[in-house]
């Protein structure tokens, strides 16, 4: 997720192909080093949609379709609008 742009594809690949997996790992590390959070959208067996925050590439489920990076949360309150 990028301000002023929305979704940007950073890297694509198959984790079963070693070279592509390496590219995915590097992209993952780059984003985390830049201070982003990484989340994997998931669905429970009951069909409920959730997300899982991951801190390392090993934590990403092997069958995950995508990892979404977004700026880390910061407590903040802009001036009261009322």
């Amino acid at each position, binding site marked *: 997720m990028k301000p002023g742009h*929305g979704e940007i594809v950073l890297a694509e690949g198959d984790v079963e192909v070693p070279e592509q997996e390496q590219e995915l790992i590097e992209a993952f590390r780059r984003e985390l080093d830049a201070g982003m959070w990484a989340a994997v959208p998931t669905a429970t067996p009951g069909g409920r*949609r959730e*997300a899982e925050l991951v801190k390392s590439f090993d934590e990403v489920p092997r069958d995950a379709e995508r990892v979404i990076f*977004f*700026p880390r949360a910061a407590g*903040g*309150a802009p001036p*009261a609008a*009322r």
Partner: protein
Amino acid sequence: MGLPLGTATVVLVVLLWELARPTFKRTLTRLHLLWREHQRGRIPAGYDPGRERRAEQRARALLRSCVSERDWAMYSDLGFLHVWGGLGDHGRGSGAAYAYLIYPHKPIVAYMPQTGELLNEYCVAFPDLTKPYGSSRLPDSDDVLAKWMALTADERRLVGEANMHLPGRQVDPDRVRRDIARLRRWEQQLAREPIQPGGGSGSDGLDPDNIRAA
């Protein structure tokens, strides 16, 4: 001849004014809000409305691909998401003691669904200080998705990062109560008319109140 013509002209002008007045008022309000934001320095230099609109379209597509059809329909119809709290005795789900309303670029509001009592506001932001496209602010739907992902993945962490305030600091409590009532009506309607796969439950446009708030 002159009198009827004059009367007709006056009536025509009044009618046109009545037709144009809502649009005129909305435009004035929008300009006023933009001016206020500009004065506060919250509109970044190089702000491009077209770029922001395209970004929001991409963000909506991403949000839609992550949440359930029901949640997407809720966001489309009502302009906010509802997430059950997961830290209580009953875990996350419809039996939970509390729930959250997620608004774009507004605090997350915690409340008790059984009574409608408002609990807290959690002020949280996801600023990208690199400002890659001239702004540090995510598109509205990305902001909602970021809150949704952080809340469903690690509620305790998000709540810990947020600044907690009593209800009413930033979000009008009356408006939240109205939204809770709207949500109940929406859920009742949904029970009568379930969502068709691939479609929303109703209009695909955001609630005008929430567009203005975003």
